[in-house]
C-alpha cells in the first residue's frame, strides 16, 4: 500500500487489512513524504507490517515499483491505494481466481466508500486512443449484474493483484506515470505479453476515490488525457502507429468541436494540451515504445479485440452521461463526489461554455479596433520605449536615462517591459496591445475562479457577467489607465488567493490536511507576492491595494462571524507584500522615505475631479457615459446580504466591506483628500467591481439554494428586483462596444508631436513638458501653482517616463530656470535649458469644449513667449503650444570655442551669457549607455547626463579625464582627437542586486512549484532512486519467515520519531 498523507478514513483501511483471511498475507506500507505520525499509527494497528519511508513522493506507480526490490519470494503483489477498505475475503478471492483462471492481473469490484451499494468500477475498457471506459455506468446500483468473473482490458490500481513474475517481466508500473493512467499502461503491456486481465466481483473493495480533493494540484483530466495518449502511442507497431496518429488528429479536431458544443470545455482543453504535451516529448516516446515492443507476444489486432470498446470510448462516455442525466442520476453522482466525470463539468458545463462564449465575444467586440489596429497613446498608455535588448541592457546597466539620468534604481517594470518585448520579438505595438487586452481576459478568468466555488455555474456566470460588463474595464481602457487595467486583471486573482489563504468556506481547499495544507498555503502566499510584485512594478500602490483588500476581507469575516483564518490572512498578506518588495529590489528603495509620498503614486497630486460618489459607484469616470445605469448592479449584493445563508451570506458580507472600502478610497482620491491621480481611480474601484461580482454570485446562489422553494414573501420580490438590476446593469456595455476601443481616442497631442522638426542626424534631445498634471501626458515633478514639469527623451513620451521619482538636483535646476522665466528674471530660458538638451518645450492647453469658446493657453505660455531664444512651432492645434529652443545642445555633443568654455562655468548667471551655438552631435548610439564616433582635436565632449564616475570616454585608446560641465553634466576635454568610445561602467553592486533579484524570482518559482507539486526534480529523483535502488529486500517470503515484524528504515526513509503521536484516524480499529 502506497500511503500519502491519509485522512481520517485510514484507520478503517488498516483495519480491513488486518482482518484479511488470506493466511500468507504480508503488508508493506510505502510511505511517501515525512509522515512519522502515520508510521506510528500503522505500527499500532498492523503490528507485523513493514513500513518503508520513501522520502519524496514519486507518484503511485513509481512508489509501488519499490516493492520489486523490497520483496522477495512472494507469488503475488496486491497493490493498494490508501483509501480502500477491503472485504475480509477480498485478497483470498483474488488469489484464488488468479490460480483458477491463470490470470496475470486481477482486480476486485470497487464500490463507493460511503454507499457500498453503488458501483464504482468493475473493470475498465479502453479504445485504441487510450480513452478508458468503465464497465459500469455512473451511479449504477450494484444488483449483482456484474458479478461474473470476466476478462477486462484494465483494472484500477486502487486494488490490483498481479503475478510477481509478470510484474517483473513488465518492469513494473510505468516509471514516467505518477498518477492517473498507470493502470491502463500496465494492463496494456500485460495484454501485449499475452497475460490475462480479469475482474473478480466476488472480491469487493470500498474505495473513496477522492484524489482530486487530496491533491488539488493535480489536474485529473489533463493527466488522464496525457497518459492515455502516451500509452496509446507506445503500444502499437509502427505500421499501426501511422494510422493511429491520423486517428488521433481526427479526434482532436472533431473532439474539440463536439466538446465545446456539448459543454466539455475543460476536457477539450485537456485533450489539446495533451497533444502539445506529447509533441514536445517525442524523443521520450521512442524509448517508451521500445520497452512496450520488448514485451510483445501478441499482435495489435489481438490486443484490440480485448479492449472492449469498438469505436470511441469518449463518445460512449458522452452517451452514458446524457442517459444518466435523463435518468436523474447526476444528482446522486454529485452527492458521491470524487467521480472523475463530475470534474468535466456535468450539467453546468453548457452554462459555462455559453457564458464564456458571450464574455469572449464581448471582449473581442469591445477591443476589436485595438487588436486589429493599434492602441493610441493616451493616459498611461504611452509609446513603447525601445527594443527589448535596449531595455534589458538599460536595466542591467544601472544607468537610468530618464530625466537627466542618474544611477538611481531602475524600475522593475523596465525589466518586465524588456521581457514582454522579448516575448513579442521586439514588436512595438504588440506589447502595448497585450497590456490593454490581456488584463481584460485575465481578469475575467480570475473572477471566474474566484466566484466559481461559491455557487453553481449560473451563479458564477452572474458574477462573471457583472465583472466583465461593469463599465470599469471599458472606462479604464477609455481613459488609458494602465494602472486600472493591470489591477482589473490581477486583483481577482489576488482576492482568490486571499480567500484560499483565509480558508473560509467554500475555499477550504486543502485545509485540514496538515503539512500539505501548510505547504499549499505557503505556495499561495508566494504566488500572491509574485503577482503583487509584478503588477506593483508598474503600479506601485498595488501592494497597498492588496493589503487593503486583505484587511477588508478580514474585517468582513469578523462582521459575519467567520473570522477563523482572517488574522492569518492579513499577516500572510503582509508577508506577501514584504516579499513583493524584495522581489522589486533595488527599485523599491527609490520609493521609500525620504522620497515624497507621491512617488508611490508616480505623480504629484492633482486637482480633485470631484466626480462624486454617485458617479464613482456607477464607474462613470471615463468616456462611456451611459454608465449611470451600472449603479443598479449593487442591487444583487444588497439583496444577497439579506437573503443569503451559509457561506453565501459570509461572502456577501465580505463583499460589502470590500466594496465599501474600495469605493471609499476612490471617493477620497476623487475629492482630493487622498493625494492621487485620476488615472488611479480605476485601481481603487476594482475592489468595488469585484464586490459587485461576488454579490451577484452570492445572490444567484442564494436564490437557488436559500430562496427558491420557500413560500412567497418579500425575498422573492427582492430577488426579482435584483435580477432586474443585473439585467439593467449590463446595458451600459452595449454602447461601449460600438467603437471597438471602449472610447479610447488617444491624446491628439501625441500625433502633434510628429509635426515637430526632426533633430539633426545623430543628435538626440529631450522634450520638456510644462502644465497642469492632468494635461501633461506623463508624470511630472511639482513646479508651482499646481503645475508640473516633466522631461521625456526625444519627442514622444514613452512608457519609460511613466515612472517618476523625486527629481535629482540637476532636474531641480529646470524648475529654478522656469521660475526665473516666469518671474521675468530672464529672457534667455533657452540658454539655461540648452545644456539639458531640451530642444522642445511643450505646454498642453485645456482642450476647448467647443470652437465657439476656445480654450485659453496657460500663463506659462506668456513667459515662454517672452524668451528670446525660444521659437514657437506652429502645430495648428490649440491643445498644444510648442517652443523650440534655439540654444539646445545634443545629449552627446562636441563643443569648441565659447561653448566649451561656457561648459566650465555653472549657474544660471553664467549660462544666460553663454553662447551655446558651437556644438555638433557626437558619439551616436541607440544604447543609452554606449556610444562611438570621432572627436576632433582641442574639443570638449559634452554629455547631457548627470555627472557620474561610471561614465568613461576613451579617445584613440586613451582614457580621458572626466570633468563636470555646467555644474551638473559630464564632459571631457580632448586635446588630441580620434576615434572615441563612450560607455557607462556598471558598478558590480548593480549586477549583484540584479542577480539577487533574479535569484529571488527563481526561488519563488521553485518554492511555489515545490510546495504545490513537490520539488521540481524530486519526482524524477524519486523515480530514478526507485529505479536504481539496490536496497536489500526487507520482506523475504521465501525464507523461513517474515524478515522482520517491526518497522525498518529503508532507503531514504527514517524511523519514526519516538515523540511522534499517531494520528486520530477514528475508524473501528
Amino acid at each position, binding site marked *: 500500500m502506497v500511503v500519502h498523507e491519509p485522512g481520517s478514513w485510514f484507520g478503517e483501511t488498516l483495519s480491513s487489512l488486518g482482518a484479511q483471511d488470506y493466511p500468507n498475507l504480508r503488508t508493506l506500507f510505502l510511505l511517501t513524504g515525512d509522515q512519522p505520525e502515520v508510521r506510528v499509527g500503522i505500527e499500532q494497528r498492523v503490528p507485523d507490517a513493514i513500513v518503508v519511508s520513501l522520502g519524496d513522493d514519486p507518484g503511485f506507480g513509481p512508489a509501488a515499483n519499490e516493492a520489486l526490490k523490497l520483496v522477495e519470494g512472494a507469488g503475488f503483489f496486491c497493490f493498494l491505494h490508501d483509501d480502500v477498505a477491503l472485504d475480509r475475503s477480498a485478497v483470498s478471492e483474488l488469489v484464488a481466481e488468479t490460480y483458477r483462471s491463470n490470470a496475470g492481473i486481477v482486480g476486485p469490484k470497487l464500490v463507493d466508500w460511503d454507499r457500498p451499494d453503488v458501483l464504482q468500477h468493475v473493470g475498465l475498457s479502453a479504445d485504441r486512443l487510450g480513452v478508458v471506459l468503465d464497465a459500469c455506468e455512473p451511479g449504477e446500483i450494484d444488483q449483482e449484474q456484474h458479478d461474473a468473473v470476466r476478462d477486462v482490458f484494465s483494472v484500477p490500481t486502487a486494488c490490483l493483484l498481479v503475478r510477481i513474475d509478470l510484474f517483473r517481466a513488465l518492469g513494473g508500473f510505468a516509471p514516467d506515470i505518477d498518477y492517473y493512467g498507470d493502470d491502463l499502461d500496465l494492463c496494456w503491456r500485460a495484454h501485449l505479453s499475452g497475460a490475462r486481465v480479469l475482474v473478480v466481483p466476488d472480491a469487493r473493495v470500498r474505495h473513496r476515490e477522492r484524489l482530486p480533493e487530496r491533491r488539488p494540484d493535480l489536474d485529473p483530466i489533463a493527466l488522464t488525457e496525457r497518459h492515455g495518449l502516451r500509452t496509446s502511442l507506445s503500444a502499437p507497431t509502427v505500421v499501426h502507429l501511422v494510422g493511429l496518429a491520423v486517428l488521433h488528429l481526427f479526434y482532436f479536431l472533431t473532439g474539440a468541436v463536439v466538446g465545446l458544443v456539448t459543454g466539455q470545455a475543460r476536457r477539450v482543453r485537456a485533450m489539446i494540451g495533451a497533444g502539445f504535451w506529447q509533441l514536445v516529448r517525442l524523443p521520450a516516446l521512442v524509448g517508451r515504445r521500445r520497452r512496450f515492443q520488448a514485451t510483445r507476444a501478441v499482435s495489435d489486432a489481438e490486443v484490440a479485440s480485448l479492449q472492449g470498446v469498438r469505436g470511441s470510448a469518449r463518445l460512449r462516455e458522452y452517451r452514458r452521461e446524457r442517459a444518466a442525466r435523463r435518468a436523474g442520476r447526476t444528482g446522486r453522482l454529485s452527492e458521491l463526489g470524487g467521480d472523475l466525470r463530475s470534474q468535466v463539468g456535468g450539467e453546468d458545463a453548457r452554462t459555462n461554455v455559453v457564458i464564456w462564449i458571450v464574455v469572449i465575444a464581448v471582449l473581442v467586440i469591445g477591443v476589436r479596433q485595438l487588436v486589429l489596429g493599434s492602441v493610441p497613446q493616451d493616459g498611461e498608455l504611452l509609446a513603447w520605449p525601445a527594443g527589448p535588448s535596449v531595455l534589458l541592457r538599460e536595466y542591467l546597466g544601472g544607468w537610468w536615462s530618464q530625466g537627466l539620468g542618474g544611477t538611481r534604481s531602475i524600475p522593475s517594470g523596465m525589466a518586465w517591459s524588456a521581457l514582454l518585448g522579448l516575448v513579442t520579438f521586439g514588436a512595438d505595438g504588440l506589447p502595448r496591445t497585450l497590456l490593454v487586452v490581456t488584463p481584460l481576459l485575465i481578469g475575467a478568468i480570475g473572477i471566474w475562479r474566484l466566484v466559481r466555488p461559491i455557487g453553481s455555474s449560473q451563479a458564477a456566470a452572474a458574477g462573471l457577467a457583472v465583472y466583465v460588463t461593469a463599465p470599469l474595464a471599458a472606462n479604464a481602457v477609455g481613459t488609458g489607465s494602465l494602472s486600472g487595467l493591470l489591477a482589473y486583471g490581477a486583483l481577482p486573482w489576488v482576492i482568490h488567493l486571499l480567500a484560499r489563504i483565509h480558508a473560509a468556506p467554500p475555499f477550504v481547499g486543502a485545509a485540514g490536511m496538515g503539512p500539505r495544507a501548510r505547504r499549499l498555503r505557503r505556495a499561495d502566499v508566494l504566488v500572491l507576492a509574485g503577482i503583487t510584485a509584478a503588477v506593483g512594478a508598474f503600479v506601485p500602490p498595488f501592494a497597498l491595494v492588496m493589503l487593503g483588500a486583505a484587511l477588508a476581507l478580514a474585517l468582513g469575516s469578523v*462582521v*459575519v*462571524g467567520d473570522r477563523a483564518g482572517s488574522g492569518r490572512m492579513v499577516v500572510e498578506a503582509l508577508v506577501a507584500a514584504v516579499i513583493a518588495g524584495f522581489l522589486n529590489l533595488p527599485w523599491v528603495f527609490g520609493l521609500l522615505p525620504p522620497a515624497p509620498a507621491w512617488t508611490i503614486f508616480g505623480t504629484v497630486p492633482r*486637482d480633485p*475631479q*470631484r*466626480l*462624486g*460618489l*454617485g*458617479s464613482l*459607484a456607477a464607474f462613470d469616470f471615463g468616456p462611456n457615459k451611459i454608465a449611470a445605469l451600472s*449603479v443598479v448592479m*449593487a442591487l444583487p*449584493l444588497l439583496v444577497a*446580504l*439579506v437573503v443569503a445563508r451559509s457561506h453565501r451570506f459570509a461572502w456577501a*458580507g465580505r463583499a*460589502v*466591506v470590500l*466594496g*465599501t472600502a474600495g*469605493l471609499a478610497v476612490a*471617493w477620497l482620491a476623487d475629492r482630493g483628500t487622498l493625494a492621487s491621480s485620476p488615472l488611479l481611480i480605476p485601481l481603487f474601484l476594482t475592489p468595488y467591481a469585484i464586490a459587485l461580482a461576488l454579490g451577484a454570485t452570492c445572490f444567484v446562489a442564494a436564490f437557488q439554494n436559500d430562496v427558491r422553494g420557500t413560500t412567497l414573501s418579500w425575498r422573492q420580490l427582492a430577488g426579482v428586483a435584483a435580477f432586474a438590476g443585473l439585467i439593467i446593469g449590463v446595458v451600459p456595455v452595449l454602447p461601449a462596444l460600438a467603437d471597438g476601443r471602449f472610447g479610447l481616442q488617444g491624446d491628439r497631442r501625441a500625433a502633434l508631436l510628429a509635426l515637430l522638426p526632426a533633430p539633426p542626424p545623430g543628435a538626440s534631445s529631450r522634450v520638456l513638458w510644462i502644465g*497642469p498634471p492632468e494635461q501633461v501626458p506623463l508624470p511630472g515633478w511639482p513646479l*508651482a*501653482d*499646481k*503645475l508640473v514639469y516633466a522631461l521625456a527623451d526625444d519627442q514622444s513620451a514613452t512608457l519609460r517616463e511613466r515612472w517618476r521619482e523625486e527629481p535629482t538636483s540637476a532636474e531641480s535646476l529646470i524648475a529654478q530656470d522656469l521660475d*526665473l*522665466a*516666469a*518671474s*521675468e*528674471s*530672464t*529672457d*534667455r530660458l533657452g540658454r539655461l535649458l540648452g545644456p539639458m538638451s531640451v530642444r522642445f518645450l511643450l505646454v498642453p492647453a485645456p482642450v476647448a469644449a467647443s470652437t465657439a469658446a476656445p480654450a*485659453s493657453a*496657460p*500663463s*506659462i*505660455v*506668456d*513667459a*515662454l*513667449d*517672452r524668451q*528670446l*531664444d*525660444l*521659437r*514657437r512651432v*506652429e502645430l495648428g492645434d490649440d491643445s498644444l503650444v510648442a517652443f*523650440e529652443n*534655439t540654444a539646445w545642445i545634443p545629449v552627446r555633443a562636441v563643443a569648441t570655442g565659447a561653448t566649451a568654455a561656457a561648459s566650465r562655468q555653472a549657474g*544660471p*548667471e553664467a549660462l*544666460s*551669457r553663454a553662447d551655446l551655438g558651437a556644438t555638433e552631435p557626437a558619439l551616436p548610439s541607440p544604447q543609452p549607455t554606449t556610444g562611438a564616433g570621432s572627436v576632433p582635436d582641442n574639443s570638449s565632449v559634452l554629455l547631457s547626463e548627470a555627472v557620474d564616475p561610471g561614465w568613461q570616454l576613451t579617445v584613440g585608446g586613451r582614457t580621458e579625464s572626466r570633468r563636470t560641465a555646467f555644474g551638473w553634466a559630464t564632459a571631457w576635454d580632448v586635446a588630441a582627437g580620434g576615434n572615441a568610445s563612450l560607455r557607462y561602467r556598471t558598478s558590480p553592486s548593480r549586477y549583484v542586486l540584479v542577480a539577487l533579484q533574479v535569484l529571488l524570482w527563481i526561488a519563488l518559482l521553485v518554492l511555489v512549484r515545490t510546495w504545490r507539486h513537490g520539488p521540481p526534480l524530486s519526482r524524477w529523483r524519486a523515480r530514478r532512486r526507485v529505479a536504481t535502488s539496490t536496497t536489500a529486500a526487507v520482506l523475504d517470503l521465501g525464507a523461513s519467515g517474515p524478515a522482520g515484524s517491526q518497522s525498518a528504515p529503508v532507503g531514504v526513509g527514517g524511523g519514526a520519531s519516538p515523540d511522534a503521536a499517531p494520528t486520530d484516524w477514528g475508524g473501528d480499529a
Partner: protein
Amino acid sequence: MTLRRLPLVALAALVVAVVVADRSHPEAVSPPTYGASPIGQSTPALVDSTGVLSTSWFCPGGPTTDGRTTFLTLFNSNDDAREVALSAVTEGGRTGRRTLVLPPRNRSVLSLGSLAVGEDTAATVTVYGAGVAVEQTVAGRSGVDTTPCADATSSTWYLADGSTTSDAALRLVLYNPFPNDAVVDVSLTTVERTVEPPDLQGAVVPGHSVRLFDLAQAAQREQVVSTAVSSRGAELVASRIESADNPSRRGFWSKLAAARPAQTWWFPDGAKGADASEQFVLYNPGDADASVELSFLPAGGTGAPPAGAPAPGAAPTTATTPGSAPASTDQTANSSLVEPVSEVVPAGTFLVVDVNSEKAVANGRHSTVINVVGDQTPVVAERVLTRQVSGRAATTVLLGSQLAVTDWYVIDEVASHGGGNLVIMNSAGLATTAAVKAIGPAGAVDVPGLSSIAIPAGGAADVPIPPSAGGFPLLVQVAQPVVVEWQAPVTLGDNTSHVTSLAFPVVGN
C-alpha cells in the same frame, strides 16, 4: 434577519445614502497664473530688483543712413557694472552685434549706425541683470525725437494718433526680436471707418527682422488715423516714425506704440490758451463703447484727486506756482474741484478731444488724467500738444503713462544738460515734495535748488533743469506716486525740435 446582518445592512445603507447625497459637483478651478507678467502695464520701466538674470530692451530704431542717425542711450542705475549685449538688424537684413560693459551709475550712448546701417535699424539690448534703462533718439531730416525703448514685447500694439495728410508722413515700424516669424494684421481707423489694407493683413515679419510700412498708402489724407497691430506667432514691438509740417501739426516724432489699452492714463503737461493747442486722441480698440472722463488738473493743484481717477492718497491741499520750484508744501491749494469732461468713445473708433474747445478747462497749464468708467473698455490715449517755440509751432506727441510711482529716471543727455524742464504730476489729494538728484560716479547727488520741490495735490510742478545738473542722468524721488515728463529743445541744423518724453519709472520686480 439575524443580528450579524445588521452591521452590514447598516453599512450598505450608509453607502447608498452617501451615493445619493454626493452627486457630481465639480468645482471651478482657477487657472494657474504661473508665468503671467507681474507688471500689467506697458509703460517702459526700469526694474530695480535683485535676482534678475537678464532683461532686454527692444528698440524699434530708426534710420541710420542718408544723414539720419539713431542713437541708443543706455543707463546703468546700479552700483556695479552691467554687461550688455546689443544685436541690431536693419530692414535690409544687415546685422551687427556688440557687447559692452556699462559702468556703474553711468550712461552710454551708442549709434546704431555703428552696428548696422539701413533705412531702419532696430536693436535688442540684453542686459545681464536689472537696473538698466534704454531709450532711443531718432534724428530725422525734419527733427529729432526720443522715446523709451520697449521693455517687453506684445502681440498687440496700438497707435492712437497719426496723420497722413499730404504734408505728413506716417510709417509703422514693426520689429520682431524673436527667432520665429510674426504674422501681423494691421487695421487703420479713420474718422469714417476702419480699414484693413490687404497688404497689411497676414504680413510676415520674419524672425530677427524689422519692417517698415507706409501707412499713408493705406489711409490717405486723414487728419487722424488710429492704428491697431495684431500679431500671430511671435510677439513684436511697434513704433512709428512720423513727420508733419502744417499749421496745426509740425514736427518729427518717433514714438513707441502702446502695447495694450488701459483704464487710466496720466499726462503731466498740457496747456490751454491762444499759444497752445492741445488734443487728446482716444482710441477704443474694443468691442464696446467706452465712457471716458478727462480730468484737467490745474498746475497749481486742485487739492483733491480727480473724480474717478485712482488716488494714491488723500491729504490737505497745497498750491504752487506753475513753472517754478516751490519752496514749501504748506501753501494753501486751489480749492476748486476738477469737473471731469465726460466723453464716449464708440467701439472701434477714436475720439479727438480738443482742449481749447472745452470751456470747463481753465486757460494755462494743466495736467490731465484720463480715466475710463468701468473696467471692461480700456482705451489708448495720446496727447498732441502744439506750442509756439521761438515763434514757430512745435508739436509734440506723447503716449500717456500707465504708471504713477515714486522714483523716475531721466537718462537723456540733452535733457540733463540744462535747458530742459521736468513736469512732475501729482494726481493724488496729498501735496508732496520731490527731490531731483544727479546720478554720477559718487552716486545720487542732489541738484542744487531741486532738493525739495513742492508738488501740489492734484497738480503739477514744472521744474527747469539747471546747468548745475551737469549733464548727469537725473533721479526724481517723490514721497508718493507721481508721473514725470521731461521736455527739452533740441536743435538739429536749422530745425529746433521740442522733444518730450516720459521719464523711466522705477518698479520693483
